[in-house]
């Protein structure tokens, strides 16, 4: 499963309406104007539903969600944490 591609596909189709030419893995979603505060809620809903996880309010930070690479790293950390609890 390629998280990076899935996250990119969601961002390109949902926020950029198919035009993802300039979106790099490390492009800031805030600074590039791709995601606003409502967009963050859309992103959270996508991640929670797609990856069946729960994102706590304190995890909703640019460090975790402001680029494709940050989101992918955050997803990996979440999954590792869930696996270690299980």
């Amino acid at each position: 499963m390629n998280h990076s591609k899935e996250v990119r596909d969601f961002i390109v189709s949902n926020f950029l309406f198919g035009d993802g030419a300039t979106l790099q893995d490390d492009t800031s979603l805030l600074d590039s104007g791709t995601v606003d505060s409502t967009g963050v809620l859309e992103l959270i809903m996508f991640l929670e539903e797609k990856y069946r996880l729960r994102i706590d309010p304190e995890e909703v930070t640019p460090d975790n969600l402001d680029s494709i690479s940050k989101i992918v790293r955050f997803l990996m950390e979440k999954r590792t944490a869930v696996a270690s609890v299980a």
Partner: protein
Amino acid sequence: MQNVTKEGRLSPSLLKLDYANETRRIETAMRETILRQFKKKGAVIGISGGVDSGVVATLAVRALGKERVFGLLMPERDSASETLALSRELVDHLGIQHALEDISPILEAAGCYRRRDEAIRRVIPEFATGDKNKLVLSALQENRSYRLFKVVVQHRDGRLAEAPLDLKSYLGIVAATNFKQRTRKMMEYYYADSLNYAVAGTPNRLEYDQGFFVKLGDGAADIKPIAHLYKTQVYQLAEFLELPDGIRNRRPTTDTYSLPQSQEEFYFSLPYDKMDLVLYGKNSGFSSSEIGESIGLSARQVERVFQDIESKRSAARYLHSPPVLVEGAPFSQG
């Protein structure tokens, strides 16, 4: 006042108005627009008991005469207890004709309260009809962060609870409560049509610039006489125009949710007096450190407010946009 040239040190004195000139200018614009351009016989103004509608109504009386101004009092079940008393005090003070329209039954019939409560229950399942509630926006952080809403409720036994809002609950609550501003506007236009009057809107500059209004709700009007004035300037005019003390001293509130809610909790990142200076400073070319010095914030904090201002301006473009035409038509101005 649009984008003035930077001059000296940033201080509240730069926002001091020439009262006589400013009131004359606004009154002339109101007469020209309402009577001559629109050929209407007077103005309808929704009266909230706050300083903005108080100043607009007073200016309308001075511009048009009190017999051509109609005040509309439109409380609903979540309005603050002082709203109606302060509104009555204003219309009595001005001696204008007015009507009281409790809009709760319309909101009830439209499902405003039910839809809002259902959206709240998505995140607080034990929320009961009649429990008090409000939305609160997270404070602006120094590092670039997201500003997210949470809902705060007070159960009937006084217990408080809160929960962050997910996308559906956030949109659901906002969409439902927007019925309030749109119902009020519908009522204002009913009276305006009946009397052959225009509707005067009451946004101040912070609200207008930052998109703190509901599209086709309080954002709709035929003239917005104080949309160029910073909030502190509206207070200056309120004093000059000798509005009743209760209105001049009332803390700005959204008066939309049943728990008391300041405008900073819901929308702005700073109290209005500081917000005025940041916006004025930004428009006038002051640096973040110069602005910070004058209001006791670091340059970095001011830069975060700058970002918040730009992000709100970006969202406000949609709110301000008239319907877009694919091609110019005879009456379009585009």
